[in-house]
C-alpha cells in the first residue's frame, strides 16, 4: 500500500459519493477504499500506464468482479503492448493465476477471451490447455466450457476434442457438460447417428438412469430413422424409468396410443412430474 501511495503521490484521490443516506453501503477495508480513490481519479484523467496496470491488479485482488477495473486494465494492456509485445504474454500468465483463484468469475473468463482475441491463433492451443486444467478442478465449470466452445469455433482445433470428451465421460459418465460438448463436437466433425446411439447405450449399461446419456441418444434418434429404430429396439423390454420416457418420444408419432399409455404409467412411476406426464398422455390421445 505504501508503494501505491508513493507511486500515486501526484494524483488527488476522489472519494466515493454514494449520495445522501445510502442503502447497502459497504464498510470497505481502508486499503481498498484508498486504492479506489486513486482509481476514480484515473477514470477522470484517462491515464493508461504501467502504474495503472499495477493498480488494477491490486484492486482485482480485493474484488475480482470489478468489471470497470478489468476494462481499464485491458485499455492499459492494449496501449502498452504496442511498444512491448511481451506485456500480453505476461498477462496470459497473470490472468491464468487469477482464473485459478476465481474459477466462477465472469470477468476473468471474459478477460481471457479478450486477451486470446488480441493475440490471435497463437494463443488458442494454450487456452485449451488452461481450460482443461480448470475442468480438472471442476468438470462442470460453465465459463470454462463456454470459452472452450468459443476457442474451437474461432480458431479450430476440434480434432482433439473427441478424446477429451471421452476421458471426462470415463471419469464421470453423469457429467452433462461433457455430453453437451460431445454433441457439439460430433455436430462439427460429423458422425453416424446409429453409431452414436450404439456407443451411448454401451455407456448406459453402467448408468441406466443417466438422463444426460438418454437425452443425447434421443437427439440422434430425432434426426435419423435408423438411429430411432436402434434406440427403440433397446427400449422395448428394457428396465428402468428413463427407457419408458424414451419410448414416449420414440412412439409419439408412429404409435400415439401406446405412447399415451406409457405416459399415463409414468405419471405414477415419476410422481414428481405426474402433472407433466398426464398432460403428455392427454396430448397423445387416449391410450389403451
Amino acid at each position, binding site marked *: 500500500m505504501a508503494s501505491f501511495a508513493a507511486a500515486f503521490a501526484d494524483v488527488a484521490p476522489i472519494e466515493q459519493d454514494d*449520495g445522501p443516506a445510502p442503502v447497502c453501503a459497504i464498510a470497505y477495508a481502508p486499503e481498498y477504499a484508498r486504492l479506489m480513490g486513486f482509481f476514480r481519479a484515473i*477514470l477522470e484523467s484517462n491515464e493508461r500506464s504501467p502504474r495503472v496496470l499495477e493498480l488494477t491488479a491490486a484492486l482485482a485482488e480485493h*474484488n475480482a468482479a470489478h*468489471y470497470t477495473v478489468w476494462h481499464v486494465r485491458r485499455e492499459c494492456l492494449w496501449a502498452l503492448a504496442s511498444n512491448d509485445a511481451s506485456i500480453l504474454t505476461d498477462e496470459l500468465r497473470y490472468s491464468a493465476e487469477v482464473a485459478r483463484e476465481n474459477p466462477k468469475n465472469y470477468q476473468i473468463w471474459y478477460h481471457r477471451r479478450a486477451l486470446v482475441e488480441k493475440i490471435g491463433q497463437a494463443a488458442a492451443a494454450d487456452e485449451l490447455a488452461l481450460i482443461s486444467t480448470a475442468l480438472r478442478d471442476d468438470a462442470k465449470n460453465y465459463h470454462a466450457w463456454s470459452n472452450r466452445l468459443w476457442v474451437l469455433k474461432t480458431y479450430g482445433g476440434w480434432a482433439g476434442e473427441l478424446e477429451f470428451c471421452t476421458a471426462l465421460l470415463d471419469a464421470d459418465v453423469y457429467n452433462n457438460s461433457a455430453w453437451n460438448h460431445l454433441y457439439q463436437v460430433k455436430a462439427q466433425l460429423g458422425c453416424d447417428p446409429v453409431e452414436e446411439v450404439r456407443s451411448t447405450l454401451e455407456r448406459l449399461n453402467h448408468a441406466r438412469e443417466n438422463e444426460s446419456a438418454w437425452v*443425447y441418444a434421443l437427439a440422434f434418434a430425432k434426426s435419423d430413422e435408423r438411429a430411432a429404430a436402434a434406440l427403440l429396439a433397446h427400449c422395448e423390454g428394457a428396465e428402468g424409468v428413463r427407457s419408458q420416457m424414451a419410448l414416449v418420444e420414440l412412439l409419439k408419432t408412429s404409435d400415439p396410443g401406446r405412447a399415451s399409455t406409457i405416459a399415463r404409467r409414468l405419471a405414477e412411476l415419476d410422481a414428481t412430474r405426474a402433472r407433466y406426464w398426464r398432460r403428455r398422455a392427454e396430448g397423445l390421445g387416449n391410450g389403451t
Partner: protein
Amino acid sequence: MDDLGAMNYSLTLLEQEECESVCARFLIDDFSTVPAAQLAQMRREGLLDEENRPRLMREKHVQYLRKGLAGLSGGFVALDASRPWLVYWIIHALDLLEALDDDAEIKQRCISTLRACRAEGAFGGGPRQLAHLAPTYAATLALCCIGSNEAFETIDRPALYQFLLSMKDASNGFRMHDDGEVDVRGTYTAIAVAALTNVLTPQLVEGVAEYAASCQTYEGGFGGEPGVEAHGGYGFCAIATLCILDACHLVDLDALDAWVARRQTSIEGGYQGRANKLVDACYSFWQGGTAQLSAHARRGDPHHIEAPQGVRWRPGTTSADVPAATPIQEIVDPIKLQRYILLCAQVFPDGGLRDKPGKGRDYYHTCYALSGLSASQHPDCTAPATVSGSPANLLPRTHPAFNCRPEKVSRMLDHFSGLPDL
C-alpha cells in the same frame, strides 16, 4: 453394490446422494414425531405455526433484509460492482413480504443510491463505474418496485435508449458493457429494460428473438450462447426475451417443457440448474418462471393485450377483464417445491434464505427463493393459489417476465407509455 468397482465411481452420483440425504433430514413429513423441546423451538422461532405446519418466517426475513439496507460488512466487497443488484434483491424481497410500500424513507434512500450509480444514461455497478446492462436491469427493476414518479424520473429515457442500442452486437445479442461479453443474459436485461421504459423500437429488437432462439440446445433448454449447455438462469433469460418479443413460435416449447420438468429433483423437490447438478433454491424462480412463461406462451398470452393481469406487460390496458382462457396446465409439483423452500432453504432460526442446507444465507438467494415461492403459489394468475404449509405463507404474485409485482409493472409501463416515442 455391484462388482464394477472403480468403473462406477461418479462424483456426480456421490454428491447427489449426499445432498439427498442431507435434504431428507430437513424435509420432515410429520412434525409431531420431532422431540418436544425442538418442536417448541421451531414454533417459538416461527418455522412452524400452531398446527405444526411449515411457516414462512416473514419477520426474520424482513429483519435480515433491512439489515442489508442499513449497511454491509467489508466482506461484501465482492459485490461492490453489484450495488443496484443488492438494492433490487432486497427491496423486491421486501415487496413480496409486503414490507416495502409503507416505508417511504427506505424508498427515498434507494432512489438516491441508485441515482448515484447512473452512468452514460444507464447504470453502473456503483458510483463512477462503467455503464453495464446487469446493474441497469437491476436498477430499473428496483425503481419499478418503488413505483413512484420520482423513481421513474431517475431514468433518462433517451440516453438509456442510446446506451441499449450501443450494446447491440452484430450477432443481434447484447454486450454486457463496452468491451464486455455477449450472451443471452445481456440480451434479456436489455430487452426487459427497453420493454419497461417503452423503447422497444424495430431497430433495437431486429433479430434479437432469433438470437435468443439460437441458444436452445438439443436438451430442450437454453444455454448462455449458441451451443453451450442448457442452464436454468440463461434459459429464463431466453424465454423471457421471447415472451416479451412475442416470438415463442421460434422455439420448441415441447422440448423446453420436457427439459424444465426434468429439472425438479425427486427427493429434494427444488430445482437444479442443469441436468445432473445439485438442487439450488435460486432456480425456484429461474426454472419456475420458465415453466410459467412457457405455459403462458402456449396459451397465447404474450400475443394478447387483454392477457390477465400478472402476465400482461403491454401498456395501455388497465381493465380488469380476464379473457376466458383455458386453465394453465402445470408440469411441475408446486407443493414439493414449496416444501423445499420452506424447510431446506429457510435459514433457521436466523432468517434469510439459502441455496441448500449447509450453505449460508445471502440476498440473491433470499430474493429468488421468495420469487420462486410466489411463482409456484400462482401458476395461473386466473386460478386460486396453491399454498403449502401455513395458509399465511401466501405471497403476492410476481410478474414472470420481469420478476416484480404485476401492479408495479403496470404502473411503470403506464408512466413510460405516456411519454412521446423516441
